């Protein structure tokens, strides 16, 4: 299996907030182009990579769609006062992780990337009662170190502000940084495509890097409609055990990946994944999702006349913070399991996907 770390570090180091995914999409397209037979972009900007299967006895050929969203949560400029930049959130952001956080302001005025820090205003500048406890997002501001005049020339309302934590390798074969949710899954899908270069498969494979998962599942809805897959699998982050996080929703990192169980998951797909994982000895745990999976699967399942869906999870500590943390080994496991699942799909597999 190739070393996925350089690619992963590169895709978490470029811009790609929800709705503005082009910079990261370009890197993914570059990486996937030699690995697939056809590559296109959807009307909303998602990447569709098609790796054709070998089945000839069925038309159209059955297809499996693997969805990994490439968009990131972040912030957007809402107003500028005396060179200080106020922001609102794109996707769900906990204001408590923001004070003192390094960011990049993607300044549309001249296309520059401005370094900045999120400032927590001193108590005397906040309305009464707002300076204790959590400082709400509307009171926080970004300081670029530039003069008010320089800021107004460069930055406009609506410009994106992204986390700027440098990716770092850590103990236990882990990597930490921002936006590992869900670029770590993009890396896993990339490993899967690499594995499939040497492995025959009868089904078509649609590799999907979807847009706007963090705000609307817009990419998953529209690409699933367009590509009409026979079945669909979402690969996303699940919660790692760690500071403040324990209980049935959380999983140790580096000890294996998870298979979703719940209304968003077709039990037969779960069963096949479980069988393949056992056969190739990849440790998997059950990720219980009583109502929603909160992944692209929730959208894919409800597209057109409905699609059987599955959710694969990679445990991650500190989701949606600037210091997300995953184990590279789990990314490799997800890539390998996806590939072996795809290889396992026989021409008439879909006829076996039946309800009891």
């Amino acid at each position, binding site marked *: 299996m190739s070393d996925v770390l350089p690619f992963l570090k590169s895709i978490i180091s470029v811009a790609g907030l929800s709705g503005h995914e082009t910079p990261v999409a370009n890197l993914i397209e570059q990486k996937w182009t030699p690995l697939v037979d056809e590559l296109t972009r959807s009307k909303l900007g998602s990447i569709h990579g098609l790796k054709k299967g070998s089945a000839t006895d069925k038309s159209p050929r059955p297809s499996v769609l693997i969805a990994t969203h490439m968009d990131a949560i972040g912030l957007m400029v809402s107003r500028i006062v005396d060179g200080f930049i106020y922001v609102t959130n794109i996707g769900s952001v906990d204001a408590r992780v923001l004070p003192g956080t390094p960011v990049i302001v993607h300044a549309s005025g001249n296309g520059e990337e401005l370094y900045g820090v999120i400032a927590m205003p001193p108590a*005397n500048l906040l309305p009464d009662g707002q300076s204790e406890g959590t400082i709400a997002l509307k009171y926080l501001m970004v*300081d670029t170190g530039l003069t008010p005049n320089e800021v107004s020339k460069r930055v406009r309302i609506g410009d994106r502000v992204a986390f700027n934590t440098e990716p770092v390798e850590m103990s236990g074969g882990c990597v930490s940084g921002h936006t590992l949710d869900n670029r770590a899954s993009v890396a896993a899908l990339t490993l899967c495509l690499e594995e499939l270069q040497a492995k025959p498969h009868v089904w078509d494979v649609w590799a999907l890097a979807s847009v706007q998962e963090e705000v609307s599942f817009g990419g998953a809805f529209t690409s699933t409609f367009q590509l009409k897959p026979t079945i669909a699998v979402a690969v996303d982050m699940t919660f790692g055990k760690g*500071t*403040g996080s324990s209980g049935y929703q959380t999983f140790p990192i580096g000890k294996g990946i998870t298979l979703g169980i719940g209304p968003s998951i077709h039990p037969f797909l779960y069963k096949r994944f479980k069988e393949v994982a056992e056969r190739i000895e990849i440790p998997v745990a059950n990720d219980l999702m009583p109502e929603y999976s909160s992944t692209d699967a929730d959208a894919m399942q409800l597209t057109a006349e409905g699609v059987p869906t599955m959710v694969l999870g990679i445990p991650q500590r*500190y989701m949606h913070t600037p210091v997300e943390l995953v184990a590279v080994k789990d990314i490799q496991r997800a890539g390998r399991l996806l590939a072996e699942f795809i290889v396992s799909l026989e021409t008439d597999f879909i006829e076996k996907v039946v309800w009891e």
Partner: protein
Amino acid sequence: MLSFGNSQIKLLEKLCNAMSVSGDEGEVRRIVLEEVKPYADEVKVDALGSVLVRKKSSGKKPLRVLLDAHMDEVGFMIVHADDEEGFFQFETVGGLDVRHLVGKQVLVGRDHIVGVIGAKPIHLTTAEELHHTLEMEALRIDLGPQGKANVGDRATFATKFRRVGPSFMSKSIDDRIGVAILIELLKNAPKNIELCLSFSVQEEIGLRGAKVAGHYFKPDLAIAVDSTPARDLPDFDGHENHTYNTKLGLGPAIYMANSSTIDDPRLVKFMEETAVKNKIPYQFRQPGGGGTNAGVIQQSRAGVPVVSVSVPHRYTHSPISVSRVADWKNTLNLLHLALKNMTHDLIIR
């Protein structure tokens, strides 16, 4: 005016990126010793770990002036290893706001091992919980599974020094900027005075290093060179901000009074006159609150006339502070010109 350029900025970058939590200032001490040795007449590391430097005068019975800057920074100490999963309990050293800690990268121990201070994902957090600050007992430094650290290891924010436009951003500008200024003044030491420098330890936990350094030198007068908060941000409701303490870009901040020290009026006046005469921008720090090493040096032995001069910075004791290069340069020049023109007359009663 002193020459100022890339080499000064490189030195400050090196100083800021070093880890020097109060009580464990070895990294900055090593840089300071290396920088001062070629220029000093006397260099000594005292009982607490402060670096004390003397540069003699060419004159007879010269005025003995002590300049102090502290080498230490606020940070953390590892106090307990939770388990094999790499989670470590830690305490703050010095005045840190817990709200600046969550979601940050840190460096742990002599080898600067990278760790992170994480938080429960927002998805698992209740609306009620989001209103409450995460408290120290709930936070851990995470070094990754099997990550190793020793109880007693110090840690600091992992942010790196960076130049941006007219400014620079870094951890520990408080008070590496003072350390850098003292080194530069030694390299350009005026001959009319006996220049004593204390690169002191443990300022952030109660002005400890400077207390004994002041005793050692028996100075005629002393200047604490530090960095002071600029709270020059906009008021949320659009009212004019009258309580800014200092503002970036207005030059060196001369103190008149803080929470425990009244600066010597003669020295305050002299600093102002020097600035005016040489057309160096300056500002008075709004009196009240805070403190510098001047407070303890003033009370050493039979008493020492003191004044504090600071370079303003925003976001005190946080992962990233912001300062202006021009303020640094103007502070350096103001101090240099002040030293050059000081005589015994200044402090005669």
